[in-house]
């Protein structure tokens, strides 16, 4: 896979504070009034983006999956779903774009024994809610049921996802995927795939 020229410098304390504020606001979210929802056309595109994202992981098309993310994207799987501050708390994964690419490349070496064979997944995204933040920014929340299979047994995972979606040159992309695993703070088995 080609190494993209993602800008590696955006994970600083200011960034952590911004992400923390946004995820915190999702946790306090009440009803989303119709005024706060994006126009139907945008909503349609954002929903389609989430479902596309889920499908590409389930099909192990990880290069294509990465293409759905912005150059300054993050994939965040906290080790406790209530965790907010990445500057002082360790996560199962808190990947910048470069780290996401590294993880995909590692799996594609064919020597990542935790992914031989790859974990099979079925992602079901439900209860999708959209929140228009600006013309070019939408936040998406959904619940997920994630069925996984490995040769020695699988697990049924669930929880909720929060996405920051951004429109760049007319195309909606994912800036943040935060996965709030129901039992993120409990002992976990093989999580070496993308949730």
């Amino acid at each position, binding site marked *: 896979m080609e190494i993209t020229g993602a800008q590696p410098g955006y994970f600083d304390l200011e960034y952590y504070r911004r992400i923390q504020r946004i995820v915190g606001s999702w946790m306090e979210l009440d009803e989303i009034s119709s005024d706060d929802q994006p126009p139907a056309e945008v909503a349609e595109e954002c929903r389609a983006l989430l479902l596309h994202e889920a499908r590409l992981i389930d099909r192990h098309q990880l290069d294509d999956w990465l293409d759905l993310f912005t150059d300054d994207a993050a994939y965040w799987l906290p*080790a406790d779903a209530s965790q907010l501050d990445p500057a002082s708390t360790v996560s*199962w994964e808190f990947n910048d774009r470069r780290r996401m690419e590294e993880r995909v490349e590692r*799996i594609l070496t064919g020597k990542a024994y935790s992914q031989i064979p790859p974990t099979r997944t079925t992602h079901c995204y439900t209860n999708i809610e959209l929140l228009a933040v600006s013309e070019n920014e939408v936040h998406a929340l959904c619940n997920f049921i994630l069925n996984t299979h490995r040769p020695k047994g699988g697990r049924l995972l669930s929880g909720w996802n929060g996405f920051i979606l951004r429109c760049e040159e007319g195309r909606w992309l994912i800036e943040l995927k935060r996965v709030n695993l129901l039992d993120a*703070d409990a002992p976990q088995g093989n999580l070496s795939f993308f949730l």
Partner: protein
Amino acid sequence: MLKEAAKNSVTYAEHVYDDYFGEGRVHRALYTDAEIFKHEMLRLFGSTWIYVAHESEIPDAGDFVTRRMGLRSVIVTRDLDGDLHVLFNRCSHRGATLCREESGNAKVFTCPYHAWSFGHDGGCRGRPLPKGFGASTDDFPYDLSKADHVESYRGFIFAAIDTKLSLKEHLGGAAEKLDEWLDRNPGSDLVVQNGSMPFEMRTNWKCVYDNAADGYHVPFSHESLLRMLSARYGNVDIAYYEGDFDALPLLVKDLGNGHTMLDQRPLMHADSAWERQHVLPGRESIWSKLNEDLGEEEALKLLNGSTGSGMNLNIFPNLMIIGNQIQVLEPVSVNETIVRWYSTSLTNVPPEINAVRMRMQEDFPSFGEVDDTANFEACQIGLEEIPEAEWVHIGRHMDSRLGETDTDGFWKEPVSTDLHARAYWQAWRTIMESNEGGKA
């Protein structure tokens, strides 16, 4: 008869494990036999020092965390005088789990069942409707049972139910290596309050422990990581593991009492640990901010002090220090183990340093531990499924005559040795076969 049994509550027949050991080999049953596992939980985890918690997790009077000593749930408490106690988390009344929270601060521990309450030292403080208790049960053990020996070494709290050794004697050579690990950042204290990653694996706890100073597996088990890193970044991190890596100045040491160390510092820290470390999220932004704030020299000093320690320090049987993390082994059953990676931070450093420590501590669990786990589980499957193949090899470098006493007085061997396994199995036998104390 009953009274005797009650007094000496845990007794166990004398065990001799001669048949399970041979030259450079151990028997599969040590990993697969549920009876042996039961004996380990009683005897091994009941009569040597077990790491339970770090003092920074319970800094204030009344603070507690619940942990395990083998299969025993324990409450690690700090009383109002600041003293530490390790109480069995079992109500003295009918046996209910007393404390059902993982951590917190408590004035007393009150049992949810009939509301008996207990102090931080385990003393019984209250029993509702006291008129119902009379002389017949005056001699009942109303206080909580607890580990009689609790000591802390530089913040690391250990407990033992039955031992003749002081903690210092038990730690032996491991203490000075722990000092080296802790003293990398003069003026800063270690804090264990930054979350943890508990990995659950279907394997015997010793399949995990076997690996704790196994320099042999690195380029093979972690080939995906090494390939990805060298394709992207060239000669960084542990890229030196290639060819005849036994010829490199990497080593494994026997520190006594089953404790060992794998030391990569001669290569990892030869120049600058931070500069050698492969990139991590935020590397550039945090580095330039620290350079701006502190100047390049001071920034690099702090970053070096927070980069992978270059040592795997293993304190038998359940504590493994790796990088900046504290790894704790929790056996669950003969073929289930939880490995908890506690993340650490420092006092008196800019917040950027602790932020970079968080990202760094997500590194190896994500890129390495997952593949190690796949192999630990594969070992367990092989050991369980094929009774005809009986032995496990732990004989590397027994005959190569490449070992020698190092300048610090400890025996060392080339990095691919099985010295670690041989050292801890010896300690395992010493404890498991001993009759001292008449318990377990």
